[in-house]
């Protein structure tokens, strides 16, 4: 019992300090203000946690310091925004994506029909590079003239581009190494099926996009959350596979790479979507123009704001808090109860020993990276109705997420949760103190502070935590 308590000392000490701080702040604040500030802090904390949880998971297992994590936050927000506000734009590309995937599926059968040297790994870099260039060129051509061509040539172009991409990267290599290829009909069957779906999508997409705009906004938003997370998982998985994986032996290059992706991603977003902040409407569940007197009546009124001890609080933010808590519980269950969690906990300690048990750790890495980036993208999608969608949002929230992870201890999910709570509360109460000034009992007038104090407070907490526990609150110290 005593040792149990001892191992929880950082948690208990931190919570006790937070409680003391709250009580001290509380007696100078009105209850409504206190509750409002507290809820704002929890909202920010939940948001930070959504980004930081994936970051800490990726670092803990893979030792990858993913500076580009915020980019996925932004990507998720844009994906959700497009799904909700411009479904036609998003669906327009679905036939192309499907055709590309069909091409990738068809690559293995195609490879067997083409002469060896031009598709074989032994054929060398030149041929593979050539297929890559051809893939990019064909895809660019397809995208460029997409709307102008009839459906057959554009889908064909997409498919051929997919085949070229697959020949440049995966198809030949896996076939070569494994020596046990899947039966041919699987590749052909999947490819043909995807093509049929692509043709169908090409026919119905405009009608669907219009129909979607008539759906209930909450339903659309829920779909947006899902699409955001999916976009994050997909791009994250591809990034790990294509960019991070070759650099595991060169950690410094990884840092440079992910830092570069931050700038490239931000610039890309500016080019595609423009620099202005996109507004995302709140889903109907949180959208009615009224103020519910209490939580119970909000449940059927769905007002945009909620009465908390006489003060209005935006009801949408409650959803963020709930999502943050749910993601935390989900991750705890995943880590403690599932086989994947077991592999992750073991892999954090000794990757090689896990591999020696017959587990393909590389594949687990890709999966965890995709999961982490999906969480960040999910966070971005969830945050978009109240912070807006803009190219620099990733960079802004990234810094706070890093502070959260460092406070909590790199690699610890519970640490990230506690760190996010601390940083969120510090930001919210910091803002309050800046606005109202602070009244010290031995001074006659209230002390006013500059707004940058609120921002600096989180760094201050990080410094104090690191002085007391250099590896963070829940860090292992190695």
């Amino acid at each position: 019992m005593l040792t149990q308590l001892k191992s929880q000392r950082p948690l208990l000490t931190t919570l006790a300090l937070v409680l003391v701080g709250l009580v001290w702040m509380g007696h100078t604040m009105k209850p409504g203000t206190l509750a409002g500030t507290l809820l704002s802090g929890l909202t920010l904390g939940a948001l930070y946690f959504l980004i930081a949880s994936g970051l800490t998971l990726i670092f803990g297992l893979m030792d990858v310091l993913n500076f580009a994590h915020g980019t996925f936050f932004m990507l998720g927000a844009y994906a959700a925004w497009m799904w909700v506000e411009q479904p036609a734009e998003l669906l327009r590309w679905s036939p192309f994506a499907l055709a590309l995937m069909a091409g990738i599926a068809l690559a293995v059968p195609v490879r067997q029909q083409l002469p060896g040297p031009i598709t074989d790994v032994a054929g060398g870099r030149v041929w593979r590079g050539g297929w890559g260039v051809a893939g990019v060129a064909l895809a660019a051509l397809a995208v460029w003239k997409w709307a102008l061509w009839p459906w057959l040539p554009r889908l064909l172009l997409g498919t051929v581009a997919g085949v070229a991409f697959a020949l440049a990267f995966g198809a030949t290599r896996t076939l070569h190494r494994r020596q046990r290829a899947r039966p041919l009909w699987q590749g052909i069957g999947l490819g043909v099926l995807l093509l049929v779906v692509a043709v169908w999508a090409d026919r119905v997409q405009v009608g669907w996009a219009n129909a979607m705009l008539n759906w209930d906004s909450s339903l659309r938003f829920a779909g947006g959350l899902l699409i955001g997370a999916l976009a994050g998982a997909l791009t994250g998985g591809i990034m790990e596979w294509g960019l991070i994986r070759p650099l595991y032996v060169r950690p410094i290059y990884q840092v440079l790479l992910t830092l570069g992706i931050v700038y490239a991603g931000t610039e890309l977003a500016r080019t595609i979507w423009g620099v202005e902040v996109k507004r995302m409407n709140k889903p109907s569940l949180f959208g009615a123009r009224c103020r519910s007197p209490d939580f119970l009546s909000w449940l059927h009124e769905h007002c945009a704001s909620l009465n908390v001890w006489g003060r209005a609080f935006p009801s949408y933010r409650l959803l963020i808090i709930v999502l943050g808590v749910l993601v935390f519980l989900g991750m705890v269950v995943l880590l403690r109860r599932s086989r994947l969690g077991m592999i992750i906990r073991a892999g954090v300690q000794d990757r090689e020993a896990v591999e020696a048990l017959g587990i393909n750790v590389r594949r687990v890495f890709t999966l965890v990276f995709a999961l982490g980036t999906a969480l960040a993208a999910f966070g971005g999608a969830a945050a978009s109705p109240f912070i807006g969608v803009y190219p620099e949002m990733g960079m802004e929230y990234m810094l706070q997420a890093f502070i959260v992870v460092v406070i909590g201890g790199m690699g610890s999910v519970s640490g990230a949760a506690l760190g996010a709570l601390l940083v969120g509360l510090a930001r919210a109460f910091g803002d309050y103190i800046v606005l109202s000034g602070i009244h010290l009992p031995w001074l006659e007038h209230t002390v006013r502070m500059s707004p940058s104090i609120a921002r600096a407070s989180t760094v201050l907490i990080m410094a104090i935590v690191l002085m007391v526990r250099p590896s963070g609150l829940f860090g292992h110290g190695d």
Partner: protein
Amino acid sequence: MMPQTTEESMPNLLTVDHIHTFIGQFHILEGVSVTVPQGSITVLLGRNGVGKTTTLRTIMGMTPPAQGTIYFDGQPIHSLPTYEVAQLGIGYVPDYRAIFRDLTVEENLRLAERQKGDLNRKADFIFGLFPDLARLRGLRGNQLSGGQQQMLAIARALVPHNRLLLIDEPSEGLAPVIIEQMMNAIRTLSTQTTVLLVEQNFVVARHLADRYVILDDGQSVKAGTMADLVGDRETIRRYLGAA
């Protein structure tokens, strides 16, 4: 190339043929050949730093050989990644035991399952060998003693259907009573699987193994049956130091 048969005409389960392994720029193995007949306990002997652990790691694909071939049950494994080597049915118990400290004893064992239900199928055998582990099931890896960790490490390699176990220094740092227990366990499990052992303690090696391979300076210099080695004082003095 097919595996050769030994003089006892037992088929070789593992044939390591003239492997060279580099770690960084260091040439650690400079031509190591080891054959492990089906059903035997073969021990790798030699002084500290001659490449015994690296030989096991090279078989597992952790430090792949730059030259030479490794055949397991007739199949080349020298260019396979570690997890695929393991999946063919080779269990590895490293000298540092590699117990996962944040996982319970039960979870450590479950992690080794290759098919659902492996642990339940093998539970009687495993807990028969190491009755202590049954009692410790709920404890975490970092709460175990050195001997208990060693038992768990071997038990973990027994969970899936492994046809060959590579065990590195099972007696290292253990009390004599525990060593006795460990030797009995290895003898019992060797009725079901073939074992390739690395062992510094010659007394332990002599009592366990049927066959030996001596490594010196990154090369395999001598191999044969344990019975022959015990009488060969000159070889023992020259390559193993102590008598």
